[in-house]
C-alpha cells in the first residue's frame, strides 16, 4: 500500500520539475541574454575622434556632437534602404528642425580583402545622392575603419540612435525611418528629449 502511494507521489515529480523550469524560462525571457539593447540604451555615446566626410582635417568627437538632442544616422550610398529614408529624414530636418548627423559607413572598405575605399569617389557619390534625394545631415562623420559603428553595435545600415543633449543614447532603431516609425516609435522620445 505504502509502495503504491510513494509511486503515485513519484508520478507528480516530472510535473513539479517542469513547473520550476517554467518559472526560470519566464524569467529568462525578460532578461536579454545578449544585453545588447540595454547595453546601449541609457548609456553615453562612445568616445570617438573621426574626420568629416568632406574635410579630412576637420575632426569630430563626442564633445562636438552633443549639447543638443541629435539623431545619429548610420548610412551609406550603397544602401538601398538608406536611399529610401533620405527624403523623409530631410523633411524631418526642414520641417521639424531635427538635428541629424550622419555616420558614413563604407561597405567596400575591407583591408583584409585588399580593398580600400576611395574617399574622393565617396564624396562624389554622396554629393550626387544628397543632391537628388535631399540632404538631412548637419554633417557626416566618416567612419572608414568602423570604430564608432562597432562601438555602437551596428549590425547593418540604416540604423539610427536618438541621443539626448547630455550625450546619452535614448533609443536605437534598426532599419529605415519612415512616417510610421517616426510617429509610433521615435517622436515620443524625441519630444521628450527636446524639451
Amino acid at each position, binding site marked *: 500500500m505504502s509502495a*503504491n502511494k510513494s*509511486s*503515485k507521489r513519484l*508520478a*507528480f515529480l*516530472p*510535473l513539479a520539475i*517542469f*513547473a520550476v*523550469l*517554467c518559472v*526560470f*524560462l*519566464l*524569467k*529568462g*525571457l*525578460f*532578461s*536579454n*541574454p*545578449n544585453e545588447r539593447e540595454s547595453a546601449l540604451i541609457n548609456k553615453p555615446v562612445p568616445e570617438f575622434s573621426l574626420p568629416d566626410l568632406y574635410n579630412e582635417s576637420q575632426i569630430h568627437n563626442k564633445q562636438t556632437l552633443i549639447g543638443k538632442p541629435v539623431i545619429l544616422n548610420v548610412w551609406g550610398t*550603397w544602401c*538601398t*534602404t538608406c536611399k*529610401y529614408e533620405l527624403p523623409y529624414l530631410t523633411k524631418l530636418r526642414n520641417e521639424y528642425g531635427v538635428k541629424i548627423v550622419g555616420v558614413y559607413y563604407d*561597405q567596400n572598405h*575591407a583591408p*583584409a*580583402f*585588399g580593398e580600400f575605399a576611395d574617399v574622393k569617389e565617396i564624396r562624389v557619390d554622396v554629393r550626387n545622392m544628397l543632391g537628388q534625394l535631399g540632404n538631412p545631415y548637419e554633417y557626416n562623420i566618416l567612419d572608414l575603419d568602423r570604430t564608432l559603428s562597432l562601438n555602437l553595435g551596428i549590425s*547593418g*545600415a540604416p540604423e539610427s540612435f536618438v541621443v539626448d543633449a547630455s550625450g546619452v543614447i535614448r533609443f536605437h532603431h534598426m532599419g*529605415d525611418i*519612415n*512616417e*510610421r516609425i517616426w510617429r509610433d516609435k521615435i517622436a515620443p522620445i524625441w519630444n521628450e528629449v527636446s524639451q
Partner: protein
Amino acid sequence: MIPELGNFALFIAFAFSLLLSIFPLIGLRTNNLKLMQLAPNLTVGLFSFTLFSFACLVYSFLTDDFTVLNVAENSNSLLPIQYKFAASFGSHEGSFLLWLVMQSGWAFAVVLKSKSLPPEMRTRVLMVIGWICVGFYAYIITASNPFDRTLPYFPVDGRDLNPLLQDVGMIIHPPLLYMGYVGLSISFAFAIAALLSGKLDSTWAKWSRPWTAAAWAFLTLGITIGSWWAYSELGWGGWWFWDPVENASFMPWLVATALLHSLAVSEKRNAFKSWTVFLAIAGFSLSLLGTFLVRSGVIVSVHAFATDPSRGVFILILLALVIGGSLTLYALRSGAIKSVGKFSTFSRETMLWANNVLLVAATIIVLLGTLLPLVHKEIGLGSISIGAPFFNQMFTYLTVPFALLLGIAPFVRWKQDKLNKFLTMPAVVGVISILLSVVWLKLEFGEVKFYAALGATLGLWVTLFTALEYRKTASKLGVSKVPLSHYAMALGHIGIAFVIAGAGLTSQYTQEKDVKLWPGDSAELMGYTYQFNAIKDVNGSNYNGWAADISVYKGNYLEAELLAEKRYYPVQRNTMTEAAIDDGFTRDLYVSLGELLPDDSWAIRIYVKPYVRWLWLGGILVALGGFLTLFDRRYRGVKLAKQAGANV
C-alpha cells in the same frame, strides 16, 4: 492577392483545428459515432488548407513579393532560386508555417494509416493532435503571421537571406528535423489517447511503434545532416559543438531512442508501461522545449534568431499547457497502469531497462548543461557557460557501458536468461576487438591513442556482436525468414558503432595547421602536401570574393584539387568562409581560407580529419534502420487490423 489567400487559408485551417478539438470530444462523450467520424475528415481539411497556405508563402518568395514583410526581410531579388525557396522557412514565421504543414501532414498520415484502429482510439488520437494544433495555429495567426505586409511603404529589394543559410543543408536540414520533432507528437497523441481511455494494454504500444520509429528516423537524419552542414558550411571544421540549439535537437532524439526500445518491451512483454507513456510525453515535450529555447532567444547560441519576448511568452504558455497538461494527466492516471510482465534480474527486459537508464541519464546531462547557465544567471550568481569539455567527458563515460550492453543485449532472452552463458563469448569478442583496434591504429597512424582505441574497440565490439547475433538468428530461422525489423535493428546498431568509432578516431587523430602561404608555396601535414597554386576571383549572383586554388599531393600522387573560398555578401555585408573539402571514406582533407596579410601572403588553415565521414555514415545507417522497420510485415495493414480487432 496570393498572400491574402494564404492568410485566409491559415484562418480556415485554424477553424478546422478548433472543430477537430471539439466535435470528436462531444462524439466520444455522447458515444455518437457520426461525430467521431468527423475527425478524419476535419484532419484532411486541416492539412489541405495548411499546405495551400504554405504554397502561397513559397509563391511570394519565388516571385520576390517584397510587399510581404517576411519576404522583404529574408530574401533578395538576386538570391538563387533554390534559396528563395529555402528562405520561405528561413525565418521564424516561415519555419512555424512549415512546422504546421508537417503537424497536419503527420495527422493526415495517421488518417490514411489508421483505418484499422478501433474508431474510438482513432478519434482520440486525432483529437489530441487537434488540441495541439489549436495552440500552434493561434500562435502563428496572432503572434507570428508569415503574411504580414509592408504596405504602404514597401522596400524595393529585400535584405537577403543570411549567407550562413545559403547552403544545400538549409534546404534539407530544417524540414527533416521538423519532421522528427513534429512526428514525435504522434507518439505523444497515442500515449495521451491511451491515458484518456484508460486502456493501457500492449496494443497502444504496437500502434505507436511504427510512428515513433518514423519520427525518430527523421530526427536522426535531420541531426546527422545538421552536423554535416555545420562541418562543411561553418568553416570551423568541427562536427558537434554542444551548442544549445544542437542540444535542443539531441534531447528529443535521446528520449525517442529510449522510447523506441521501451515500446518494444511494452508491446512484447507487457512491462514498463507507465514508463513508456512517460517517455512518449517527454519526447514531444522536449521537442517543444527545444523549439522554445531556439526561438525565444532565452539562451545565447551561434544559431542567432531574432528575439521577441512577447512571442516567447506565447510559446511558453503553449508549452505550459501542452507539457503541464499532459504531465498532470500522467500523474493522475499512471497509478492505474499495471505492468503484468514479470522478468528476472538478468533478461532482455533488464538490458533494455539499462538502455533506458543510460539514455535518460544522457538526456538529463544535456538538459542540465543547457539550462544550468540560465538558472545560474536568474538566481543572481552571474553568467557561466557550460561547454564542450563537460559534455564530452560525460558522454565518454556514458558511451562505454552503453556500447558494451548494446553488443550483448540482443543475445539475451526475454524474461530470464543465464548469466554464466555470457562469460566466454564477451571475453573472446572483447579481446579480439581490443587487438584488432590496436593493430589497426598502430598500422594506420603509427601511435595508439587511448580514446581512439576505446572508440575503435567499442565500435568493433558492437559490430562483431551484431554479426554474431545475425548469424545465430539466421541459422535458427533460415536467412529468408529473418524479419525486416531484425535487419533494421542490426543496421541501427552498426550505425551507432560507426559513430562511436568515428568520433573516437577523428577527435584524436585530426591535425590542423595554420599556415601563411604565398601563391606557389606549399605546406605539409600528416604526409599530405598542400600546394597553394593561385588566388582567383569568384563571383556569384549575390556575392563576390576570393578563392584559393590548392592541390593536395600524397607523395607524387594528386589526391585532390581544392578551391577554398572567402565570400562577401554585399546586401547583408557579411563575409563567409566556404571551406573546401575533399571527402573520403577514411579521411577528409579540409582547407579554409583566412585573411590576406599585409605582405600579400594568405593565412590558410589546413586539416586532415581521419574517419570523420563515419559519423554521418553511421547516422544515415541508423536512420535507414528506422525507416526499414516501417516496411516490416507487422506494420502493413491487414494483419494489424485483425490483431487490433481481436484485442478490442
